[in-house]
C-alpha cells in the first residue's frame, strides 16, 4: 500500500519506531452530549440542531447522563480506573464547524485513566507473544460539525457547514506510546473495536466516522534507546485522516520509513500533523500553522464537576456484558470447542450470542459450532449478508444440527438443504419439510448395495480381514455413492461392519 522508499532491511533494523494512538469513538446515545437533539448520522444538513449545539449566545450545555454511562462502560471494558470526580474543560480554537469557538472536553481530570489492552505481537526473536499496550486515559468530549468543501456549484469560493454532527458525544482513548510496529497498531485497533462493539456503546463504523484514529509516530536509533531509554524518543509526527485499519497500518508503515529516510539523509523529523493520502499511499504535511495551537484549556464554568459515585458506577456496570476474552475462554471450556472456533465465535457479540442460544437448545453444541462457523458463515459471506440477514433462524440452526448429529441427514444433504435456504431465502425447517431427503432406511436395500460393493472390491475386503478395520470407511463411502447419498448413514455404518465381519 505505502509507496516504496527503498530503504534496506539493514537500515530499517537500526531504528526503533514508537507509536501511540488517539482514537475518537462516537457514542450511540439517543441524544447529543449537551442538548436534546437527536444523535443520528446524516440527515438534511442543519436539521438536528438547537440553540445549544448551534452555540447560540446565551445557550448552555446540560450533560447527557447516558453519555456518561457509555463512557464509563467503555472505560471499564478496557481496564481503566474511573475518576469519581472529573472535570469538563474548554478547548479553545476557532474553526467554522466548531460553533462555540471551543470544544467541551476533559483535560487534566478525565473520567478514566490507566487501562490496558493485550494484543498479539512478536518478541525480538520473532516468537508470538501477548503484548500489553497501556491506555493513558479515556475522556469525554463533543464532536464538531462538518465543513463541506466540495459538491456545491460555488464550492470553489465557498465552504458550507453542516452542524448536525455537532455535539455528538465522543470518548477519546489515548494509548501509551507502547506500540512498536504497524502490525501492532492494527492488532490494537482490532482489539479495541471488538471490545467496544461488545459493550454496545458505539457502532465503530469508520465509514461514517464513528471511530476515528490519529497515530503519533516517531523513530529512534535502537542504540540510542538502549543507552538512554525513553529520553531517546524521537520527534513525533501525527498522522491524521485515515479511515480504515488497513490504511492506518499502511500509513504508519509509510511514516516510519519516511522518518528513517529523513534521518538517514541527515535531516531532522519535524513535529507536525500529516494527512494520509490513500490514493498515493503516502502522508503529506499539513500547514505548519496547525502546530502553533495553544488551546487555553480551563475548567468549563457552565458545567459542574461530574461525579460518578460508587452507587452509580455499580448501576452502570450491571450493564457490562461478558467481554470477548472471557467469553472465548468460557466457550472453549464449557462446550469443548477448539481455541480457534471459540475465537471465531466471539469476534462479534451477535455471533457469540447466536451461538450460545443455539447451543443451549441443540443436542450437540459442537455440531452447532461446526455448522455455524463453516456452512452458515460461508454462505453469509457469499451472499454478502450479516448474521441478522441470515435466512436460517436460530431454530433452523438447531434443527439442522440435531438432524446431522442424529445421522438423519448426511453432510451432503445438509449442504444441499442450506443451499436451498440461501437461494430461496427460506428458513431451514421449511426447506427440510419440503425437500426432506428420501433417506434409505430399508435394511435389505442397503444390504443389497453393500453386497454389490463387497463383490466389486475384493482387495479392500482382504485388507479389512487382514486387520485394517479403517477400510470400512471406504465401503461406507462407496455405498453412499451408490445410494446417491440417500442411505441412512448410521444404519449404513452399522451394516457395513456387520457384513465385513460376517
Amino acid at each position, binding site marked *: 500500500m505505502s509507496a516504496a522508499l527503498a530503504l534496506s532491511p539493514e537500515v530499517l533494523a537500526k531504528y526503533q519506531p514508537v507509536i501511540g494512538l488517539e482514537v475518537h469513538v462516537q457514542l450511540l446515545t439517543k441524544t447529543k452530549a449537551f442538548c436534546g437533539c437527536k444523535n443520528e448520522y446524516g440527515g438534511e444538513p442543519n436539521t438536528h440542531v438547537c440553540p445549544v449545539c448551534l452555540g447560540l*449566545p*446565551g445557550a448552555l450545555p446540560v450533560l447527557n447522563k447516558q453519555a456518561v454511562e457509555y463512557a464509563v462502560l467503555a472505560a471499564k471494558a478496557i481496564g481503566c480506573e474511573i475518576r469519581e470526580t472529573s472535570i469538563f474543560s474548554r478547548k479553545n480554537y476557532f474553526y467554522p464547524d466548531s460553533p462555540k469557538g471551543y470544544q467541551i472536553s476533559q483535560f487534566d481530570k478525565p473520567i478514566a485513566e490507566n487501562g490496558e489492552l493485550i494484543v498479539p505481537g512478536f518478541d525480538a526473536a520473532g516468537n508470538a507473544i501477548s503484548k500489553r499496550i497501556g491506555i493513558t486515559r479515556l475522556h469525554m468530549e463533543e464532536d464538531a460539525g462538518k465543513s463541506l468543501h466540495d459538491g456545491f456549484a460555488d464550492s470553489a469560493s465557498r465552504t458550507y457547514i453542516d452542524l448536525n454532527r455537532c455535539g455528538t458525544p465522543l470518548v477519546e482513548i489515548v494509548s501509551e506510546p507502547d506500540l512498536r510496529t504497524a502490525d501492532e497498531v492494527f492488532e490494537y485497533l482490532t482489539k479495541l473495536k471488538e471490545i467496544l462493539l461488545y459493550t454496545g456503546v458505539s457502532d465503530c463504523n469508520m465509514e461514517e466516522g464513528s471511530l476515528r484514529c490519529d497515530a503519533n509516530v516517531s523513530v529512534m536509533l535502537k542504540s540510542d534507546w538502549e543507552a538512554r531509554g525513553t529520553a531517546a524518543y524521537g520527534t513525533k509526527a501525527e498522522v491524521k485522516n485515515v479511515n480504515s485499519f488497513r490504511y492506518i497500518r499502511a500509513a504508519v508503515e509509510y511514516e516510519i520509513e519516511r522518518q528513517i529516510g529523513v534521518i538517514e539523509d541527515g535531516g531532522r523529523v519535524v513535529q507536525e500533523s500529516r494527512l494520509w493520502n490513500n490514493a498515493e499511499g503516502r502522508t503529506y504535511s499539513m500547514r505548519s500553522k496547525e502546530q502553533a495551537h495553544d488551546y487555553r484549556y480551563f475548567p468549563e*464554568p457552565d458545567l459542574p464537576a461530574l461525579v460518578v459515585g460508587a452507587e452509580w458506577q455499580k448501576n452502570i456496570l450491571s450493564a457490562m456484558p461478558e467481554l470477548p476474552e472471557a467469553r472465548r475462554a468460557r466457550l472453549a471450556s464449557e462446550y469443548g470447542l477448539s481455541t480457534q472456533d471459540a475465537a471465531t465465535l466471539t469476534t462479534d457479540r451477535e455471533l457469540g450470542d447466536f451461538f450460545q442460544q443455539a447451543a443451549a437448545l441443540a443436542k450437540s453444541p459442537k455440531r452447532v459450532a461446526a455448522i455455524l462457523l463453516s456452512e452458515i458463515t460461508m454462505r453469509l459471506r457469499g451472499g454478502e449478508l450479516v448474521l441478522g440477514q441470515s435466512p436460517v433462524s436460530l431454530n433452523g440452526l438447531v434443527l439442522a444440527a440435531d438432524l446431522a448429529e442424529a445421522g438423519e441427514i448426511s453432510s451432503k444433504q445438509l449442504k444441499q438443504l442450506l443451499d436451498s435456504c440461501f437461494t430461496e431465502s427460506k428458513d431451514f425447517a421449511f426447506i427440510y419439510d419440503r425437500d426432506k431427503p428420501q433417506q434409505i432406511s430399508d435394511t435389505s436395500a442397503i444390504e443389497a448395495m453393500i453386497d454389490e460393493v463387497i463383490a466389486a472390491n475384493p482387495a479392500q475386503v482382504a485388507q479389512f480381514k487382514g486387520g485394517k478395520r479403517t477400510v470400512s470407511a471406504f465401503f461406507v463411502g462407496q455405498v453412499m455413492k451408490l445410494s446417491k447419498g440417500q442411505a441412512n448413514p448410521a444404519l449404513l455404518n452399522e451394516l457395513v461392519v456387520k457384513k465385513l465381519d460376517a
Partner: protein
Amino acid sequence: MPESPNALKSTVNNDLSTLTLAEARAAVVSGTTSATALAERYYERIAAVDPEINSYLALTKDRALAQAASVDAAVKSGAPLGPLAGVPIGIKDVLTLKGAPATAASKILNGYHPPYDATAVAKLEAAGAVLLGKLNCDEFAMGGSNENSAYGPVHNPRSLDRVPGGSSGGSAAAVAAGLCAASLGTDTGGSIRQPAAFCGVVGVLPTYGRVSRYGLIAFASSLDRIGPFAHSVADAATLLEVLAGTDTMDSTSSAQPVGSYSADLAKPVAGLRIGVPEEYFGEGLDPEIRAAIEKSLDDLRAAGCSIQKVSLPHTSYAVPTYYVLATAEASSNLSRMDGVRFGHRSAEANTLANMYRKSRDEAFGPEVKRRILLGTYVLSAGYYDAYYRKAQQVRTLLTRDFLTVFNDVDAIVCPVTPTPAWKLGEKTEDPIQMYLEDIYSVAASLAGICGMSVPCGTTKDGLPIGVQVLGKHFDESTMLRVGAAIEAAQVK
C-alpha cells in the same frame, strides 16, 4: 432631599416615574386601567423621554401588546392572574427574547434575532409581565458606566450629564425615569448594584445559581447573574420570587427551595446581627457616601439590629482576581461571535483567518477587545498558573472570608461604590481607574453570595447614594428584610 438641576424633567405621563410594580398590577387587576392602556402610556413616555436617556435599544411592542391583551382578557373573564399581571417591564439587551434583536449593545450582534426566550424572560411573561423592550447596557455587559455601548451612552435620569452606572445602565435608568415599572439587569462584578446606586433605585443580585442563566449572553459564566431593578424592595422581592428556581436548561442553577421573599418582608428585623466590614470604609470612600451609610446603620440599630465590625481580610485582592477570572471566561465566551453564523461579518473578508480577524476587529468595541486580550493572555500556556490558577485560589479565600463572617452575622452592610455617579466622559480614558470603582462590588460576585443596593440618600448635589446589603448564599429573605428596613427609614 436635594435634586440635581440636571435631573430629567418631563410632563408626559409623569405619574409613571414613581409607579411601583405593586401599584401597576393593582391598577390593572382592579380595572382602574387596562394592561393595554398602561403599556401604551409607557410607550408614549418612552417616545417623549427616552431620546434624552437612550435606555431602550429596541421596543417589542407587538409582543407587549399581545401579552397585555391576554392579561386584559383574563381580567375580564375572571381567570387567575399572575403576580406580575399587566406590569410593564424592560429587559437588558443581553437576555434573549425570541424574534427580538439581542445585540448585547455590540455591533457584532447587529441583526441577530435569537430563536428562543431566556428562561428568566419566559418566567416573567408567564407571571403576566408585559415586556416593553430591550435595554441599553455596556457592550457584553463590560463596563461600569454604560459608555461602552455601541449604540451610545445612557444618561442618568437623576442628572442627565452623568453616567447611570453600568453595565446595566439602561435597566437602572429606565426604572428611574419611569420608562418601565421594573426591569431585568445582569451583574457580573457589580453591574446591577452600582447602576442601581447611581440611579437611585433598588437593584438585587441573587445568589449564584438562584436564577437560571439560560438565554443570558454570557460575559463570565461563573459570575454572571440575572436580577431585578425596581422602585421598592417589595417590588424586587416579588420579581425575585418569580425569577428564582432551578432550570433543567442551566446545570449551574440550584435546586435549593425558593424562599417566600414577599411574605418574609413582614418579619421584623429586630435581633438581626449586621456586620460592617472595615475594609469597605477605607481611603477613597466619598465622605457623603460614608455619612449616608452610617445613617442607615443608625436606622438599623434603631430598628433593633445589632451592629458589629467584621473583617474581610482578602478584600484588596478582589479587583485583580475578578479581572483575571472574568476576562478569562469572557475571552472564551465571546469566541462564538465569529461572523460565521450570525451577526457582523466583515465585507472585506476573503480568507477564513481574515473573516475572523476583520469581523471581530470591526465590530467589537475597545473595552471588549481589551478584555478578550487580557483573558486570552491569562489562559495562555506559561501564564495559566501565575494568573488563572492563582486567581481561582484567591477566589476561594475571598469566599471563605464571607463564610467566616456569616458565622457571626446575618447580613453585611457596606457601600456599593466609592463615589456617586460621575460625569459622562470623565473616566473613559483610564480603564484601570474605572476597574477600581468595582472595589466594593466584585468580592460578593466572586463569592457567589447575594447582594443588593438600596437608595439611602443623596449627595448635596442631588446625586443618589446606595447602600449595599450582602446576604448568605440563598438567604435572599434576610437580605431583603434588611434592605426594606433601610428603605422604610428613608421614607420617614
